């Protein structure tokens, strides 16, 4: 893990409230794995005070990108970054997705801004010859992100873009097509979606990894601020920032 002064290359708006921030840091770019995150000090002042965590969306040479939606003060500051500015970044943090497993088809399931880690994952999965199928969902068309996805089907709660319903309902209606294939699911999104994805995987006994979120203070295991209940030991919490943010669906109980 490093502390880097990353140089802003660009901020690009790719959706109604979806932005890409491209940063330059050879150290972070060289060491990043899909599913890991960076922890960004968005300002030089005490406002906001704590770092903000973001999944690494993609890596290209010395550059890496994050994808974010503007939800509060920190993301508003990021949205206004100018080319050439420097940003204090800690990374790459967390464990990342494991590409291992007995599968030939990787099924990506994203809910809203949960699409963020997948461009990088898809690129790495393709390198090792996996076939990619993507499902992306959101409340409305504006919340459904398909950036750099392959073979993508969409779901929206209001039916404004693709299937009407949740992304997990869409997946359920499609899964029969892959019944004779070896698949592994990679999911990321809000907890409610991850919970139903978890249930979906349990009932069908499908191998899956999910990237989770928690409020955080440090992002590297020293504050104990980001616990998630272990599914195997009721006396134990795991830390989202250090043991995760990616977990096997069998390992955690989502709140």
């Amino acid at each position, binding site marked *: 893990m490093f502390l880097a002064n990353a140089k802003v290359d660009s901020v690009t708006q790719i959706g109604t409230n979806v932005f890409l921030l491209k940063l330059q840091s050879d150290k972070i770019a060289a060491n990043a794995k899909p599913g890991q995150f960076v922890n960004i000090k968005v300002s030089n002042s005490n406002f906001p*005070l704590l*770092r903000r965590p973001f999944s690494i969306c993609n890596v290209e040479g010395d550059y890496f990108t994050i994808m974010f939606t503007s939800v509060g003060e920190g993301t508003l500051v990021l949205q206004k970054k100018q080319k050439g500015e420097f940003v204090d970044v800690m990374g790459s943090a967390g464990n990342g997705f494991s590409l291992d497993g007995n599968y030939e088809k990787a099924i990506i399931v994203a809910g809203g801004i949960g699409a963020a880690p997948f461009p990088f994952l898809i690129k790495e999965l393709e390198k090792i010859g996996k076939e990619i199928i993507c499902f992306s969902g959101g409340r409305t068309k504006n919340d459904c992100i398909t950036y750099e996805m392959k073979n993508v089907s969409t779901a929206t709660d209001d039916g404004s873009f693709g299937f009407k319903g949740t992304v997990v309902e869409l997946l359920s209606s499609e899964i029969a097509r892959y019944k004779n294939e070896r698949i592994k699911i990679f999911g990321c999104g809000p907890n409610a979606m991850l919970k139903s994805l978890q249930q979906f995987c349990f009932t069908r006994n499908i191998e899956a990894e999910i990237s989770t979120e928690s*409020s955080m203070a440090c992002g590297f295991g020293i504050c*104990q*601020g*980001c616990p998630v209940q272990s599914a195997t030991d009721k006396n134990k*919490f795991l830390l989202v920032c250090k043991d995760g943010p990616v977990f096997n669906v069998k390992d955690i109980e989502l709140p």
Partner: protein
Amino acid sequence: MSAVDLSVSVGPLKLRNPILLASGTVGYGNEISEFIDLNKIGGIVTKSLSLKPRKGNTPQRVIETPSGMLNAIGLANIGVEEFLKTKIPFLKKFDTKIICNIAASSVEEYVECTKLLTDEDTISAFEINVSCPNVKEGGLEFGNDKKAVAKITEEVKKVSTKPVFIKLSPNVSRISEFALAAKEAGADAVSAINTLVGTAFDIMTRKPKIKNITGGLSGPAIKPVALAKVLEIRRNVDIPIIGIGGIFSWQDAVEFMIAGASAFQLGTVNFVHPNISETMINDLILYCEKMKIASLKNLTGSFIL
């Protein structure tokens, strides 16, 4: 090599420099050692240890507030036994002071923890966290009860072979009275301050933002309060003080020393700038050179009123 002497003493404990890392903000040292050389700072204070492992509170445990944060971790820790078995071997490798912070729910538990730890050479001192509910007294915090603070200090001192520091709660009207109680019971120093009780609400759901309802406020927001508490102790009680509360820069640290602290602890800042304890060393040297201070310890309590 600079001619400035950064070494300080906290009672009988000698430190290379006054920079300590606060309990609960460095775990047991391993993660932060990716960012700093522990051999360069004065020492670290472990996460509060209790006799048995504690799982801690249900999330959400942390939330940012203006220039600060609230936490309700619930003293989650691995317990004394596991600490000795798995953390000491790592800490042994460093030439830095390891101060073991102890939290308990009865006087007996404080004593039991101290007994189990005091023979370990790697540990240089104890810091007793009295901001814990006293289970036998219906959950009232030890830190709010002068008699309880005195009793814990006295009993821990009896079994400890190392210096004992009492970490005071700021959630009292006269902190200096608690410092005096600790001193009279034999404490070697006091650490001030622990976090201030606070809360925050989500206005859409009308629920507290942290599950525990209230939490401990830390960070720059509490610095003026912490400084005033250090000053109050300094002016009323003759006991070494470790200053804590909202230190985010070397300038903040210098303020604490001027107000009366012999050493200081960095807490919340480690989450944001995990390398600041090391980068601050040079800044302190430059300050001393500029101010023609030969020995940093001369700064302690040097306020001019």
